[in-house]
C-alpha cells in the first residue's frame, strides 16, 4: 500500500500537469475539446489524489509503523476515530489533505458548471486551480512525502499528542483547511476575470456561495480552535494571539471585508479594483497562513518544527502576489466605472469604513505575528510581541467595528439625511444608554467592558428595530400577522437577515469576550480529601479520588462537590491523564457551564497522599461566545441558501 500511495500521488501530479498542458493548448489553439480534456485531467487528478488519501488512511488503520508519518502520529492503542483523524495531525498528512480537498472542490466546480458552455474565462479558471493543486502535489511528491518509510518496522508508534485527542481538535484543522482551500475558487475566478478583462460583478455573483461558505468554514475552524484551547490546554482562556491562531484570523478579517464590499459591487457595480485586491490578499494570506503553520518559522503551541517547506511556500506566495499585482495593473483600464459613492451618509460609506477597520486589524495582527521574523532579520534577535500588544492595538479597533456593525443597518443605501438618521438612531441609542446605566448601577466600571456591553446593546437594538420596522411595513402592505410577516421576511430576504443574524451573534460574542476578560475570578489551592476551596459564590469540596484505565490512558480523577451558599448544586470531576507513549501527564479540564458563568477547574498536581492542587476560575458569560459564534454561522448559512436555481461556480 506504501508504493500504491506514492504512485497515486505521483499520478495525481502527472494528471494535473497534463491538465495544465491541455488547457494551455486549448487556449493557444482555441480548441474547446482540449479544454474539456483539461477539465477531465483535473477530474483524474482528483481520483488519483483520493486513492493516495485512501492509502494513507489504510496505513493508519492497519498500524503500518514502517511509514514514518504513521509511526510519528499513531500507535496501536489509539482509538479508531483518532487513528483516522491522525491523517491531518502532522505537516505531511495536512498537505495531502489540502491537495485532496482542493481536488474535490475543483470537481465540485466542474460539476456545477457542467451545463455551461466553455468560454475564454474557463481555461484560465482551471489553470489557476490546477497550478495551486500542482503546487501542493509537487510538495508531496518531492519535498514532504507522507509515505516516506523508516526502513524498519517499529513495534509501536509514538502515538498522537494527547492534546490533539479531543473532538474539537479533530474537526478544527479540516474546517480551517476547507476555509483556506475554498477561497482558491473565487481567487481563480478573479484572476480569470482580470486576464480576460471581464471585470464586472459576474465573477463575484458566480462565486458568492464559495466566498460565504469558505468564510463559514474559516469561522467554525477558528471557533473550534478556541474551544479546544479552552477545554484542553487548561490555562482558562480560548484565545492567546498565538501565531497559528493569528494565521487563520488574518484571512478571516480580510475575507470579511471582501464579503462586505462584494455586496457593493454586486449592487452598484463599483469598487471593482478594491474587491480584486481583497480576494488576492485573502488567498495570499490563506497560503501564508498554511506556511506559518507548516514551516515552523514561528514558535507556537501548534509548533510543527522546521520543515524545509518555508522557501517553497514563500515562492508560491510571491508568485501569487507579484502575478496578481501585475494583472491588476495590466487590466486597470477595464475597471473604470461610471458610478461612485454618492454620499458620506450612506451604507456604502459605512462599508468602506468597516473595510478600513478590518484591514487595520488584519495588518496589526499580521505585524505582531511576523514581528519575530522581521526582528530576527534586522537585528539577529527573535523578538516576540505578546498578548498585551495585540490587546492594546486591536481592542479599540474591535470596538469601532462593533459600533459600525450597529450604525451600518441604520443608514440607507446611496443617501441618508440627518433627520432620518436621528430618527433611526433614537431607539438603538436609547437601548445602549439604558444598558449602560443598568450596568453602572450593577457596579460595572471597567471602561472597555462597559463600552463593549453598551455597543453590543446598540447593535442588538439596531437589529431588533430593523426587524420590527420591516415586519410592520410588511403587515401594513399585506395584512399578514406579525409571525407570518416575520417568518416570510426572514425567508424571502435571507441575505439581509442572514447578515443581521451574523451581526447579532457578533454582539453576543462581544458580551462574552468582554465579561470573561474583565471579570474573571481565579483561585488556586492544595486540598486534602474533605477540604474546600472558595471562589466567588462557589465553594469546591474535594470528595473522592479514583484511578482507572480507559482506552489508551490511565486516568486520575478527583471528584469535587460544588456548593453555593452552603447548598450542594453540582459535582465535577477534574482529571489528570497518563497516555501510553506520552512523555508527561496532561490535565483534563472540568467545566460547569451556565448562561451566567463557567466554573473552570484544572488539577495541575497530585501529591503522594492523593492531595490535589486545583486551579479554579469563574468566567462570566463565557458561553455567550460559543452561542454567539453559533449564531454567526447560522446567519451565514441562511444568507447562502439559494432563492432559485441560479448559475454559479
Amino acid at each position: 500500500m506504501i508504493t500504491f500511495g506514492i504512485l497515486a500521488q505521483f499520478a495525481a501530479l502527472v494528471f494535473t500537469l497534463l491538465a495544465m498542458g491541455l488547457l494551455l493548448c486549448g487556449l493557444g489553439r482555441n480548441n474547446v475539446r482540449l479544454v474539456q480534456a483539461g477539465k477531465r485531467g483535473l477530474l483524474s487528478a482528483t481520483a488519483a489524489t483520493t486513492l493516495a488519501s485512501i492509502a494513507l488512511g489504510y496505513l493508519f488503520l492497519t498500524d503500518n509503523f514502517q511509514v514514518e508519518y504513521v509511526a510519528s502520529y499513531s500507535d496501536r492503542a489509539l482509538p479508531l476515530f483518532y487513528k483516522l483523524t491522525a491523517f491531518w495531525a502532522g505537516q505531511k498528512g495536512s498537505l495531502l489533505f489540502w491537495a485532496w480537498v482542493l481536488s474535490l472542490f475543483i470537481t465540485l466546480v466542474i460539476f456545477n458548471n457542467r451545463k455551461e458552455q466553455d468560454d475564454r474565462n474557463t481555461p484560465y479558471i482551471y489553470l489557476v486551480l490546477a497550478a495551486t493543486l500542482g503546487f501542493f502535489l509537487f510538495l508531496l511528491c518531492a519535498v514532504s512525502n507522507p509515505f516516506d518509510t523508516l526502513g524498519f518496522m517499529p513495534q509501536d508508534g509514538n502515538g498522537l499528542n494527547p492534546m490533539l485527542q479531543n473532538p474539537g481538535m479533530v474537526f478544527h484543522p479540516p474546517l480551517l483547511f476547507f476555509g483556506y482551500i475554498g477561497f482558491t475558487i473565487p481567487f481563480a475566478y478573479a484572476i480569470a476575470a482580470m486576464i480576460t478583462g471581464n471585470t464586472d460583478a459576474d465573477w463575484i455573483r458566480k462565486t458568492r456561495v464559495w466566498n460565504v461558505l469558505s468564510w463559514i468554514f474559516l469561522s467554525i475552524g477558528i471557533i473550534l480552535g478556541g474551544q479546544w484551547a479552552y477545554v484542553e490546554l487548561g490555562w482558562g482562556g480560548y484565545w492567546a494571539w498565538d501565531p497559528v491562531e493569528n494565521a487563520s484570523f488574518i484571512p478571516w478579517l480580510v475575507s470579511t471585508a471582501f464579503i462586505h464590499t462584494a455586496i457593493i459591487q454586486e449592487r452598484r457595480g463599483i469598487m471593482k479594483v478594491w474587491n480584486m485586491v481583497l480576494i488576492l490578499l485573502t488567498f495570499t494570506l490563506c497560503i501564508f497562513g498554511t506556511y506559518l503553520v507548516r514551516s515552523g518559522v514561528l514558535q507556537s503551541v501548534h509548533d510543527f518544527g522546521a520543515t524545509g517547506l518555508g522557501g517553497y511556500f514563500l515562492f508560491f506566495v510571491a508568485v501569487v502576489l507579484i502575478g496578481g499585482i501585475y494583472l491588476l495593473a495590466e487590466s486597470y483600464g477595464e475597471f473604470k466605472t461610471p458610478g461612485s459613492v454618492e454620499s458620506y451618509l450612506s451604507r456604502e460609506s459605512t462599508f468602506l469604513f468597516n473595510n478600513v477597520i478590518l484591514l487595520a486589524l488584519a495588518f496589526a495582527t499580521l505585524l505582531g505575528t511576523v514581528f519575530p521574523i522581521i526582528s530576527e532579520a534586522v537585528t539577529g534577535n527573535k523578538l516576540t510581541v505578546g498578548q498585551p500588544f495585540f490587546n492594546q492595538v486591536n481592542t479599540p479597533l474591535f470596538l469601532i467595528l462593533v459600533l459600525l456593525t450597529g450604525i451600518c443597518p441604520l443608514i440607507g443605501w446611496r443617501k441618508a439625511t440627518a433627520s432620518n438618521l436621528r430618527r433611526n438612531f433614537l431607539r438603538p441609542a436609547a437601548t445602549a444608554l439604558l444598558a449602560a446605566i443598568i450596568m453602572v448601577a450593577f457596579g460595572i466600571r471597567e471602561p472597555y467592558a462597559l463600552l463593549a456591553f453598551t455597543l453590543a446593546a446598540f447593535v442588538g437594538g439596531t437589529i431588533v428595530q430593523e426587524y420590527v420596522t420591516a415586519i410592520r411595513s410588511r403587515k401594513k402592505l399585506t395584512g399578514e400577522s406579525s409571525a407570518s410577516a416575520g417568518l416570510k421576511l426572514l425567508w424571502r430576504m435571507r441575505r439581509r437577515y442572514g447578515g443581521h443574524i451574523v451581526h447579532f451573534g457578533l454582539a453576543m460574542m462581544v458580551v462574552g469576550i468582554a465579561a470573561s476578560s474583565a471579570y474573571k475570578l481565579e483561585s488556586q489551592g492544595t486540598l486534602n480529601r474533605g477540604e474546600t476551596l472558595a471562589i466567588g459564590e462557589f465553594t469546591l469540596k474535594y470528595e473522592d479520588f479514583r484511578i482507572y484505565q480507559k482506552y489508551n490512558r490511565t486516568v486520575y480523577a478527583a471528584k469535587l462537590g460544588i456548593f453555593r451558599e452552603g447548598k450542594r448544586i453540582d459535582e465535577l470531576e477534574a482529571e489528570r491523564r497518563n497516555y501510553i507513549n506520552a512523555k508527561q501527564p496532561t490535565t483534563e479540564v472540568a467545566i460547569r457551564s451556565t448562561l451566567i458563568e463557567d466554573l473552570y477547574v484544572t488539577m495541575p498536581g497530585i501529591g503522594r497522599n492523593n492531595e490535589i492542587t486545583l486551579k479554579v476560575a469563574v468566567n462570566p458569560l463565557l458561553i455567550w461566545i460559543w452561542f454567539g459564534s453559533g449564531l454567526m454561522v447560522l446567519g451565514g448559512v441562511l444568507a447562502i441558501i439559494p432563492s432559485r436555481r441560479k448559475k454559479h461556480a
Partner: protein
Amino acid sequence: MEIAILLIITLLLLAYTLLPVLQPAATLIQDENPLERQRKILEQEKKNNLQAIKDIDFELATGKISADDHQELRTLFSLKAADAIAAQEQLQDDNND
C-alpha cells in the same frame, strides 16, 4: 497486485482524460463582439437601476430615507433605467438594420 490495479486505474483515467481530444475540434466561445458587450453593459445598467429603485422603496418603508429623498432618487434611477432601456432598443434597431 496493488501496483497492477493502480496501473489499470491510471490507464483508464488517461483514456477518460484524452477522449475529448479524439472528437472533432470545436472552437471556444469567443469574447462577445463589441455590440454584444455593449448590450450586456446596458442590461446590467438597467438591472442595477431597477434594483436601486427596489432598495430605496424598502428604505422608505423602513424609514431610512425621507419621502423627498426617495422621490428624488426614484426619479433619478427611473430615468437612468429608462435611458438604459432606450439605448438597448436603439442597439437592437441598429443591429436589425
